[in-house]
């Protein structure tokens, strides 16, 4: 009897020890995966995308359906310009969790980068239906409309974005750009001024102002605006464009 009791106790002890080891293993496994994800995010924020990709791939080799690692790797792929791979990772996230709206939103942005504008619009429309006050969704829907040549719809979406968030400089600027494209120079001028009121160093807005003045027949004011844009621009392409146009106006 005593021996049976001892045997039973020994068996329970072994079982508990095994469970303990297994859960300790699981704990350390999760810790390792989390550590890799954390390092991957740190590398992403510091711009070391290749290192970030390596860490996140390591995390995913240990935990294939880790939704955070998949989502973050999607961001890294996007930063590296590998938009197809980014889209795949965001879609994988949505398969694992269809309600993971950050992955849905980022997939929409990636579809814009891939020029899959109909898919992008579908995604942003889905987000807007569920979250009508989403300034980002309205703005990116506006971008999708604009790039698809639907400038009137783009104006509407940028208008909503700038109403939701009046300090959103880019929304005012892009609304002005869309209005310029529809031929509404007066409205484009108003929104360009709104953008410049929020950010007086906004080179692109000066460029757009130059475009508006040119179309209004005021070459002198246009030239001044392009000169200001050239002075403020940090993008060498924009600087070069301004220089060419100024030279053309001066001819």
């Amino acid at each position, binding site marked *: 009897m005593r021996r049976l009791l001892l045997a039973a106790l020994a068996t329970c002890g072994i079982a508990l020890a095994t469970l303990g080891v297994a859960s300790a293993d699981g704990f350390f496994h999760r810790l390792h995966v*989390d*550590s890799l*994800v*954390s*390092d991957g*995010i*740190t590398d*992403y*924020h510091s711009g070391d995308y290749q290192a970030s990709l390596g860490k996140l791939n390591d995390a995913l080799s240990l935990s294939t359906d880790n939704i*955070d*690692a998949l*989502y*973050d790797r999607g*961001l890294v792929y*996007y930063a590296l310009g590998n938009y197809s791979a980014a889209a795949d990772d965001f879609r994988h996230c949505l398969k694992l969790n269809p309600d*993971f*709206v*950050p992955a*849905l*939103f*980022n997939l929409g*942005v990636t579809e814009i980068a891939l020029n899959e504008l109909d898919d992008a619009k579908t995604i942003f429309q889905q*987000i807007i239906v569920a*979250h009508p*006050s*989403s*300034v*980002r*969704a309205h*703005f*990116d829907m506006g*971008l999708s409309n604009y*790039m698809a040549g639907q400038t009137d719809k783009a104006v509407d979406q940028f208008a909503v974005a700038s109403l*939701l*968030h009046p*300090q*959103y400089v*880019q929304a005012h600027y*892009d609304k002005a*750009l869309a209005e*310029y*494209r529809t031929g509404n120079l007066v409205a484009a001028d108003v929104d360009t001024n709104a953008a410049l009121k929020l950010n007086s160093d906004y080179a*692109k807005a000066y*460029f*757009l102002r*130059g*475009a508006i003045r*040119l*179309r209004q027949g005021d*070459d002198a004011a*246009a030239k001044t605006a392009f000169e200001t844009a050239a002075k403020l621009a940090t*993008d060498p*392409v*924009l600087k070069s*464009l301004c220089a*060419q*146009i100024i030279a*053309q*106006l001066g*001819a």
Partner: protein
Amino acid sequence: MKRQTTAGRFTRLWVVACIAATAAIAGATIARTSAPAAASTPSAITMVDHALTLPQLLADESPYELIDPVGPGGISEDQAKGEVTASTMIGGLYNDGTHTFGGGY
């Protein structure tokens, strides 16, 4: 004698006319080929309108193009969701009037 003089005169006139015509044609040809054709340059409006189609003049240059990374060392899933659904942004942080989200940048 008179007939020969008239025929000779007509012949001389004909030769002179041919030479003059040839000289005129040659001169016009040389004038046309010696100066290069002026290349047509696009107008400033054309250049501007083309420039406005470029990504440099459209892309969202804010740091909020994508929603921030999620997980240990990043933001929480709730915060990331907040970045998508928020109606406004305050100091770079998304805000829906009751909660402030974000913090990646």
